[in-house]
C-alpha cells in the first residue's frame, strides 16, 4: 500500500493525475521498493518561481543521522509534463534508495541546515540591500511582482477605519490625562514609503475632521534593515519633515535598537514584512515529528548555462556567487551584468529537502525566547500528517516588538497568515520566489499561542477591503 496525499484540491482547477499515478505505479513496481514506506504528495505550487524541482524526493533521518526507512516524493502537479514524468520519477526513486549523499547532478551550495539558516536568505537580503540596482536593470518596481500588482498596505479605506479606531484611543487617553506628549508610531519594513504617506495623510485628515492637534505630536519611525529601501521611503514621506525618522534596524529584534521606547509606542504596524523573514518548518508523519532540513543547489544544466552566459569557468561559480552575496552586483565590471548573473542564479536556485526526527517534541521550543510555548501543544490541535512553518524570525520579531507597545497601543500586521493549521493541508504555503525575494506564509495559530503566553490575544481577520486578497490582518489586544 502506498499513501498518496492530494494537497492541491483546494482553490485550484481540476488536474488529471491519471497518467501520473499510472507512471508512479509502474516506476515503483519496476524499482521493487516497498511502497508501504513511500509517501507521495501532490502539490500545486502557486508561486511560478520557487525552489522545488517538479519531482522532489526526500529522505528521512533519525536524530542521530542514520537513515530512516520512510521516503517521500513531492510532485508539483502544476508542472506535470507527460513526457518528462517517467524519467523524473525514476531518477527520484533512484535518489531515494541508493546509498550515498547524492549531488552528482547538481552544484551544492551548502550542507543540509535548517531552512532559516540557508543561503537563500543571503539572496533575499541582497535583494533588499540592492533593490534599486535590480529595479533599474529590469525596469520595474518590486510591487509589480505582488499578486494583482498592488499592496494592501496602502488601501485608503482600510487606513481610515484603523486610524479612526486609533483616534478613539488617543481621545480616551487624552480625556483621562494619560496621553503622552509624543505619540510614537513605528513602521517595520517600509517598502516604498507609500504606506507611511497614506498613514500620515489619513491621520492628518481625521485629526482635522475631529479638530485634534495630535499630528504635531506624532513621531513616525520608519524602520528597515536596508538603507537603500529607507532612502526611497524617506523621499516618499518627505513632506512630513522631521516628524518622520528613518532607523536602520534588524527586523528580528526591534527592541534592541529601540529599548528607550519600551511600552511607549502607540501604533506599531507592518505589511508583508513577516512573510519575507527566515522560517523553519516541521512535519508530522505517522505520528513522528520531524524538522525539515534543506541544502541549496544549482542543477547541472543551469550551472552550464550560467557559466556560458557570464564567461565563467564552472569551478569559479561558487566563488562568484559568494562574492555577489557579500559585495553585491557591483562585484562585476558592470552592475547590470552583475544583476543579470544574480537573477540567473536566483532563478535556477533549488532546495533539496530531508526530514530529521525530533525525538522529544514536548521539549522542542519553537520560539526559544518564549520557553513556555511547546511544539506538542500546537501539534495536539490538529490530527494526522501535517507540515507547517514555524515562522522563526517573524516570531522573534513579534516577541521583540510587543514590549515596545504602549499598554493602550495598537499593533497591526498585514501579511499572509494561515488562520487554521488545516490550511496547511490544502495549498502550498511557500517558500516561493517573488522577484528576488522569498515569500512564506505565516503560522497564525503559532502567533496566537505565543501571544497568549505574553499576555496578548492575537486576532486574525481577513482583509476585506479588496476582493480575493490573501492578506490577513493580525491585531492584538491585552489578555485579561
Amino acid at each position: 500500500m502506498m499513501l498518496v496525499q492530494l494537497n492541491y484540491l483546494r482553490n485550484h482547477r481540476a488536474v488529471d493525475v491519471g497518467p501520473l499515478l499510472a507512471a508512479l505505479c509502474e516506476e515503483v513496481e519496476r524499482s521493487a521498493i516497498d511502497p508501504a514506506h513511500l509517501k507521495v504528495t501532490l502539490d500545486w505550487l502557486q508561486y511560478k518561481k520557487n525552489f522545488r524541482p517538479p519531482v522532489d524526493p526526500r529522505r528521512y533521518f533519525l536524530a542521530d543521522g542514520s537513515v530512516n526507512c520512510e521516503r517521500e516524493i513531492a510532485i508539483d502537479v502544476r508542472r506535470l509534463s507527460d513526457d518528462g514524468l517517467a524519467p523524473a520519477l525514476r531518477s527520484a526513486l533512484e535518489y531515494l534508495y541508493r546509498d550515498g549523499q547524492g549531488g552528482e547532478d547538481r552544484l551544492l551550495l551548502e550542507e543540509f541546515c535548517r531552512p532559516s539558516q540557508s543561503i537563500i536568505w543571503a539572496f533575499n537580503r541582497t535583494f533588499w540591500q540592492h533593490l534599486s540596482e535590480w529595479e533599474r536593470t529590469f525596469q520595474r518596481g518590486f510591487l509589480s511582482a505582488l499578486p494583482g500588482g498592488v499592496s494592501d498596505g496602502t488601501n485608503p479605506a482600510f487606513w481610515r477605519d484603523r486610524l479612526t479606531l486609533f483616534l478613539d484611543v488617543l481621545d480616551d487617553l487624552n480625556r483621562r490625562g494619560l496621553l503622552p506628549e509624543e505619540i510614537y508610531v513605528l513602521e517595520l519594513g517600509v517598502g516604498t514609503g507609500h504606506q507611511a504617506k497614506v498613514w500620515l495623510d489619513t491621520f492628518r485628515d481625521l485629526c482635522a475632521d475631529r479638530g485634534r492637534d495630535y499630528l504635531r505630536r506624532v513621531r513616525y519611525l520608519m524602520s528597515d534593515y536596508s538603507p537603500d529601501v529607507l532612502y526611497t521611503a524617506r523621499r516618499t514621506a518627505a513632506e512630513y519633515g522631521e516628524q518622520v525618522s528613518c532607523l536602520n534596524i534588524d527586523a528580528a529584534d526591534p527592541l534592541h535598537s529601540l529599548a528607550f521606547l519600551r511600552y511607549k509606542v502607540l501604533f506599531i504596524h507592518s505589511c508583508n514584512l513577516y512573510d519575507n523573514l527566515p522560517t523553519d518548518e516541521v512535519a508530522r508523519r505517522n505520528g513522528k515529528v520531524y524538522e525539515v532540513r534543506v541544502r541549496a543547489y544549482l542543477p547541472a544544466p543551469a550551472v552550464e548555462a550560467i557559466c556560458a552566459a557570464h564567461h565563467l569557468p564552472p569551478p569559479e561559480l561558487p566563488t562568484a556567487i559568494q562574492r555577489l552575496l557579500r559585495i553585491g552586483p557591483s562585484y562585476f565590471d558592470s552592475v547590470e551584468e552583475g544583476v543579470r548573473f544574480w537573477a540567473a542564479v536566483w532563478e535556477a536556485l533549488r532546495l533539496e529537502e530531508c526530514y530529521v526526527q525530533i525525538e522529544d517534541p514536548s521539549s522542542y521550543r519553537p520560539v526559544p525566547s518564549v520557553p513556555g510555548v511547546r511544539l506538542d501543544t500546537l501539534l495536539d490541535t490538529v490530527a494526522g500528517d501535517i507540515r507547517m512553518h514555524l515562522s522563526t524570525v517573524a516570531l522573534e520579531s513579534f516577541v521583540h516588538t510587543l514590549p515596545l507597545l504602549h499598554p493602550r497601543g495598537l499593533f497591526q500586521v498585514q501579511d499572509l497568515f494561515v488562520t487554521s493549521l488545516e490550511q496547511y493541508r490544502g495549498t502550498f504555503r511557500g517558500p516561493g520566489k517573488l522577484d528576488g525575494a522569498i515569500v512564506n506564509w505565516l503560522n497564525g495559530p503559532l502567533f496566537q499561542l505565543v501571544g497568549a503566553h505574553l499576555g496578548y490575544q492575537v486576532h486574525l481577520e481577513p482583509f476585506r477591503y479588496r476582493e480575493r486578497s490573501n492578506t490577513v490582518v493580525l491585531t492584538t489586544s491585552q489578555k485579561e
Partner: protein
Amino acid sequence: MRPPPPPPPRLLPTAVVGSYAVPEWLERLKTDYHQRRLSAATLDAIHDVVIKAALKDQERAGLDVVTDGELRRDNLVDHLLVRLPGVEIDRRQKAYYYDYYDAVVRGPLPQAPLGLVAEFQFAQRLTDRLVKYCLPGPHTLVKRLRDEYYGDPRALGLALARVLNAELRALVAAGAQLLQIDEPYLSGYPEDVAWVVEVLNVLVAGVGARVALHICYGNRYGKPQWEGSYRALFPALLRAEVDQLVLEFGRRGVGELGLWREYGVRWELGMGVVDVKDERVEGAEEVAERIWRGVEVVGAERLWVNPDCGLRHVAPEVAYRKLEALVAGAALVRRELTGRADA
C-alpha cells in the same frame, strides 16, 4: 484612627513586594490541576515545598522582609475570590492557570473568615524574618468582579472592605505585623481615587499592624497595563489611613518622587528600585543611586527598599540576582549613612 506602626526592623529595610518567581514547571502543574490532571492535595504539597524554597531564596539574598512568594495563588485575585462567601464562580476549570475566573456577585456579601491566617502562619513558622502578608484591595476586586447586586462600585467596594477588614484583624491577632494592600488598577483608573480612599479606610480601620498600600502600573504577564502618572492620584490619596506607600520607580525613573515633597507626604515609602519587567539585572551601584534619591526626598528613616512589583514573571535565577542587587545596593547606602561596614 489606627495606632502608629512600630519602628522599622532596621535602617532601609529590604523587602519583596509580594510574589516570587514562578518556574515554568510549576505553571504547568498548576494548569494540570485546573484540567483535572493533578489533585488538589498533590498541588498543595507542591506549594508547601516551593514556598519553603522561595523563603530560603529570600533569606539567602539577604532580605529583611519576606513573603511566601504568593506561590499558592494563580493570579492577583482568584485566590481571594474563591474564598469570599457570596462570590460565585460558575466555572472552575481553566485552560491556563493564570487566566481569571469569571466571578460574579449576585447577593449581599456575608461576613465570614477567609482562611488566610493559616497561610501566614505557615510562612512565619519557617523563617525568623519579618513576614509580609499581601492581599488585593477592594478596588482591584471590584474591577475583576461582575456585580449583579450592588449596582455601584463604591457600594461593592465597601462591602468587600468590611469582609476583608475582619480578615486583616485576624491576621494581626495571629501575629502579622506588616500587611500590604495591592491596588494595581488604581493608576489606570485615577478617576476612582476618591471612593477608593473611602473604601480603603474602612478596610484598614482598627488594624493594629503596619499597613502598606502598593500601587503600580500593572504587572499582568510581566507587562504594564497602564502608563500614566501617580500625580493623577494626588492629593486625594493623601487621605488614606495607611502607613506606607509601595510604588514603582525602577522602571519609570525617580521623577515622581517630587510628589512626596510637593504634597508633604507623611507616609513611609516602599521604593521600587528594581525593574521587574526587564530581565537585565541591575548593578548594586545603580540600585544605590536610586535609593539615594529616595533618601534625599523621603528621608532614610522612612524609606524601605523593594522591587517595583512582584517577581512572578521574572525567571527564577534572574529574580534571585535582582534581590541580591537590591540588598547590596541598600547595604552600600546604609554603610555610607551609618559609617559602619557591617550596616
